[in-house]
């Protein structure tokens, strides 16, 4: 079972746009210490503010997707450029996991 990571560099308070807020409206809020989401059906608890890319790795999955010729692939650039870390998040296929912040009860599907 994946463990909650000690992650001293994660910000305690950070800027996030609330899911329901109108575009562009800022919500400064103090986040909970950790969130639990599901990766391929398994529960994973990650530090608040962690990206989905980290949650997938913490779930023990190294193959985020399969390439067009069937090779296993995982994150390369870590910054939204390469599209190698794409997974399905809450039904949205081809989401770049390195740019989506984990939310409680999020459902993540990989090809792993």
């Amino acid at each position, binding site marked *: 079972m994946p463990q909650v990571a*000690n992650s001293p560099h994660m910000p305690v308070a950070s800027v996030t746009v609330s899911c329901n807020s109108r575009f562009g409206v800022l919500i400064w809020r103090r986040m909970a210490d950790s969130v639990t989401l599901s990766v391929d059906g398994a529960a994973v608890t990650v530090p608040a503010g962690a990206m989905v890319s980290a949650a997938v790795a913490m779930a023990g999955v*190294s193959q*985020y997707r399969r390439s067009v010729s069937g090779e296993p692939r995982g994150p*390369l650039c870590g910054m939204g450029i*390469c*599209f190698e870390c794409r997974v399905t998040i809450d039904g949205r296929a081809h989401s770049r996991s*390195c*740019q989506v912040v984990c939310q409680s009860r999020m459902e993540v599907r990989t090809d792993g």
Partner: protein
Amino acid sequence: MADCDYDVVVVGAGPAGLAAACRAAECGRRVAMLDDNPQPGGQIWRGAAKESTQWVRTAKQHGVEWMAGARVFDAPEPQRLAVETFDGECRVGYGSLILATGARERFLPFPGWTLPNVMGAGGLQALAKSGLPLAGKRAVVAGSGPLLLAVARYLRAHDVDVRLIAEQAPQSAVVRFVLSYPRKLVQALTLRAGLIGVPYITSCWPVSAQGREKLESVTLRRADGRTWTEACDYLACGFGLIPNVELAALLGCRMSKAGVEVDEFQETSEAGIFAAGEATGIGGLELSLVEGEIAGYAAGGNPDRAKALFAACASHRRFAAALEKTFALRDDLRNLPLPSTIVCRCEDVTMERVRACSNWREAKLHTRCGMGPCQGRICGGAADFLLGWREESVRPPVLPARVRSLSR
């Protein structure tokens, strides 16, 4: 998501974008700052660095509107951007536009580079800062540039077993560079002090990565031909940085050899469109901040304050030129990919298929190289170095977008 209009729109919230947004807002302009990441700070200040917190505070004080997770995928009409977020889309209008789109790592293909856990140097650091626990893992840091030291230091500080740092540049060039910039010498020594016990091997580069379903070991070679294999869990490998110029190209901005072409006020060949930071050429943090400030003042209508920064800008540019010379990629690296090595990771196109073509356009048409989701952002940097090919035209959407966003 509602459409909106601003006097100044800044694309990118790294150092250059933050500086530009703050200065334009100080000039009394209504400013919005967009970034595709959920937090401001860009790559260098990922994970809420102290410096970024100060700039973010200033931006907030001056009423800069911050749009998180916002990707610009098209410029459908003059002075209007098409923007998509994780769950919505809108149009953002601007009087002036400042492009601070930053840079990405240059990746070079070698056998095994597509294995999971082979990442960019900045890529592994970004993933670590995104919450991935790496304590106790073994990592090899390789490629080229000062970023390797910074990444190795970061990993070490987070209890990663950094086996070695492989820098392709020769020792003589690195030493000459460090000695000619005393302030950087101090920085380099401080970094090195945090890396005691980690070999920094110059004239050395990875030639292959091995593993079944993920990375298990990497084979390295020195310029004198010595080759050995190092067992590791992660390979953090980047061969310098290349500017993100796709949006500027879509907007019709002229390119220089280094990146987006700009005048001394950071204005591009398109009136009212400015570019600042790594997008105009790789120059590092200090240059990005100054360029951002100049662009912000210029777009904000205060050219005199911009002019006061020209001297600082020129001095940082000299440093950038020395950096480029020192870490120029050696010719040996052109032999890294074997004929069977995948060059385009999106479409799994091999080196032999790409090499059979005579230019980038032909490769795209005949092999689909560069035609996948990343649109050549990864293999383009490799093709540029390996074959001397450059992207000739950029078409919308500059990023894959949802049909709903496109059909507006």
